[in-house]
């Protein structure tokens, strides 16, 4: 090996949300912490400053803030007998890159998790019985409870300056909030954002239909705010450049706006960019991580020794590093044995464009990533699944995220795709078009998993991660149920017509059009090393000084956006490392 760096106490792979959280929480103990980031350094000024960043060509059409797939990507197939093909262009999901990671271009929707989802297997058996679970569905409990995580959800929301309205404070129901909300210790740090036209129509319609609309929690600040790290957020101005974009106003919570100003000031913390980690190095018996190997900007292989390793990259890279470092037993879909790559899940999205008459102005160019009204009447187990016969649920929302014309102008069914008829249609419809969506859980199945591709390699000579996943009957029947709800809501909103995409039985995962970056699972957390890669503290069962963060630790998919849970789990892991692990290094959970 050409280069060996000076050893550090903690090396963190990836410098997005979870890397920044772990870095500041561990640096506060006085440990020497180093974060390695494969991408560029970037900050609000100049990287996301107005006017440069509000450029649809650079950001949305050319994916300026996303992972450069020429360096590394994944391969995808629908089933284990198919040939996996590379994800050559950005489509159905959008991994980020650079300092801040996907925390730069996310929308800001900031949810928690429903308590029963963390113990879904137990809960389902209790309420519906064993016969209700499809034979190939791999339900399992996560090993951590909502009550244990609540202070960490709270912590992350107060770091992000989340705008919302509590529905349930310590069991007391709060008018105006989400009546299905799990108990929270206190109100959101900021009041809800102003409602744009789509959200007003959605709230009115869902109320008329007997549902329970509430303001979607958004980490887009509704007021000026100073967080517990002393970082300041400015109010969101609904600029309309949110998802795909860095925030021009210090309004959208990101590592840059909420953590890095405080972290950068700590002398025992450092970060290095253009450091692409290819391996976690381990001792001969595999029980101890000795550091990581990365490729630097000059293409040199560098060994970074460390007393503790934290995987905090995006989902895809965390799972691949576990596989390429040979930590934990790879999952085998034929036997169901092994844990790395197991329970790979995604999310289903039904998206319905609602078209209104010429007197109804939506002005879709205004908006914010997280702003909207939502209902949870059909999320998690908030409704009786018994007569419906499927497991899972989702959140339905009328968000107004900001849509410019390069991102695509939705048109009613049957409208021409070009020519004078198309031109007339975009002129007539653009200002009067809204969008409502259902975001639904994708359960874990025996045949859906991640492993290393046998054919394709990336620019560093490493095998690509291979995804094997398709929509299953349970999930598609759920999607059809949600499609009916969406159409009824669109009608109640007064839409003159609707178009869009509702996943139905017979549909396959289509990797071309964007739907959701919420891929999850693959290094599941849990109580049993036979079915999970990490314990409830996100500590590797096999290598006790290795911690694995990110949505890859989800045991199965959820209907909510994952960032709130991913952040809370990072705080939970950091808190337990500080209070337990550092005092007594070694396995933290009994097998």
């Amino acid at each position, binding site marked *: 090996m050409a280069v060996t760096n000076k050893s550090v106490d903690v090396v963190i792979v990836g410098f997005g949300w979870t890397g920044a959280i772990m870095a500041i929480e561990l640096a506060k103990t006085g440990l020497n912490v180093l974060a390695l980031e494969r991408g560029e350094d970037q900050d609000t000024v100049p990287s996301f400053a107005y006017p440069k960043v509000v450029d649809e060509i650079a950001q949305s059409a050319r994916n300026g803030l996303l992972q450069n797939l020429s360096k590394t990507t994944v391969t995808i197939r629908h089933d284990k007998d198919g040939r996996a093909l*590379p994800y050559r262009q950005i489509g159905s999901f959008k991994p980020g890159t650079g300092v801040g990671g996907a925390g730069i271009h996310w929308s800001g929707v900031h949810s928690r998790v429903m308590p029963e989802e963390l113990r879904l297997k137990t809960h389902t058996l209790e309420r519906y019985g064993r016969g209700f679970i499809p034979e190939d569905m791999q339900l399992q409990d996560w090993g951590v409870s909502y009550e244990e995580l609540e202070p960490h959800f709270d912590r992350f929301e107060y770091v992000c300056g989340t705008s919302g309205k509590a529905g349930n404070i310590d069991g007391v129901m709060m008018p105006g909030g989400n009546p299905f909300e799990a108990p929270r210790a206190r109100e959101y740090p900021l009041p809800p954002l102003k409602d744009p036209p789509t959200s007003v129509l959605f709230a009115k319609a869902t109320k008329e239909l007997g549902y329970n609309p509430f303001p979607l929690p958004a980490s887009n600040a509704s007021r000026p705010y100073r967080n517990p790290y002393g970082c300041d957020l400015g*109010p969101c101005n*609904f600029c309309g450049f949110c998802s795909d974009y860095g925030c*021009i106003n210090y309004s959208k919570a990101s590592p840059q*706006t909420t953590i890095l100003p405080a972290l950068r000031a700590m002398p025992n913390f450092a970060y290095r960019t253009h450091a692409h980690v290819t391996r976690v190095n381990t001792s001969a018996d595999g029980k101890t991580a000795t550091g990581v190997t990365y490729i630097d900007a000059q293409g040199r292989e560098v060994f970074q020794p460390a007393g503790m390793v934290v995987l905090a990259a995006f989902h895809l890279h965390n799972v691949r590093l576990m596989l390429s470092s040979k930590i934990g037993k790879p999952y085998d879909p034929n036997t169901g044995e092994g844990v790395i790559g197991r329970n790979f899940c995604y999310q289903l999205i039904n998206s319905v464009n609602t078209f209104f008459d010429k007197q109804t102005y939506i002005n879709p160019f205004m908006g914010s990533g997280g702003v909207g009204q939502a209902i949870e009447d059909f999320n998690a187990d908030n409704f009786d699944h018994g007569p419906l016969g499927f497991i899972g649920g989702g959140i339905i929302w009328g968000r107004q995220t900001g849509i410019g014309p390069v991102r695509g*102008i939705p048109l009613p069914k049957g409208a021409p795709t070009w*020519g004078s008829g198309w031109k007339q249609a975009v002129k007539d419809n653009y200002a009067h078009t809204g969008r409502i969506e259902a975001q639904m859980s994708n359960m874990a199945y025996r045949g859906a998993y991640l492993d290393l591709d046998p054919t394709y390699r990336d620019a560093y000579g490493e095998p690509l991660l291979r995804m094997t996943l398709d929509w299953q009957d349970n999930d598609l029947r759920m999607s059809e149920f949600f499609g009916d709800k969406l159409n009824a809501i669109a009608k109640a909103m007064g839409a003159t017509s609707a178009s869009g995409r509702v996943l139905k039985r017979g549909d396959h995962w289509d990797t071309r059009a964007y739907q959701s970056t919420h891929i999850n699972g693959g290094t599941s957390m849990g109580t049993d090393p036979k079915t999970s890669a990490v314990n409830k503290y996100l500590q590797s069962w096999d290598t006790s000084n290795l911690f694995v963060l990110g949505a890859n630790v989800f045991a199965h998919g959820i209907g909510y956006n994952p960032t709130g849970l991913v952040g809370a789990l990072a705080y939970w892991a950091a808190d337990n490392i500080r209070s337990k692990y550092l005092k007594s290094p070694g396995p933290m959970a009994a097998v």
Partner: protein
Amino acid sequence: MSDTNRRAFLKGSVILPPLAALGVSSASSQQTPAVDELAASAPAAATPAADDYKPTYFTAPEWAFVQAACARLIPNDANGPGALELGVPQFIDRQMGTPYGDAANWFMQGPFFEGAPEFGYQSQLTPKQQYRLGIKAIDAWCAKNLGRTFAALKPEQQDDVLKKVEAGTIKSDEAPLKTFFSGFLLKNVMEGFFGDPMYGGNKNMAAWKLIGHPGARADFMEWVDRPALYPYGPVDLHGRQA
């Protein structure tokens, strides 16, 4: 940024960034950022559509095709100028000279296999190659079946050819024409029509005016809760108003 633009930007005679974007509200930037940071926040120099544009990538026959196709995909009609008038052919030609033209950010390692459409783009052709082979194949089909190249056909004939390419009924062994049409030609025409004028299309922000899009205004604090006609015209990335 040209010197003129830089001066205009610093004098505030172009649209001003929101105060927060200047860094005054973050602990990371309590001090006023240096001037070079302001410059770094500015977009690249604008090169709007020029009347005397000469293509850099496209050959003369290809240029004739691109111009003719633009004129049919978004025609000049009762609703105002079309893609040709707004400079979209220039946009496309210039995009071929960017990293996009060479598919620089796509995974382009082999082996290449055909797959179900759900698996997305699986060709080894870059955007530049798509145009080179796609135009040649369409012109060859037109010459063989209609006796002229695409650009020399009547508008109705051109529409008919484009519809057949879009539907996949005109095929070629030399180029994946259906993919060329939807994944490149039509997509790039839309990008050029609606993108910022600095890239060469959307001349005078006419496409934004057509649909009521305010361009780079990016500040709707006082308007987001008003379901009414937004009263202001568009502004581009260099602060020009239309």
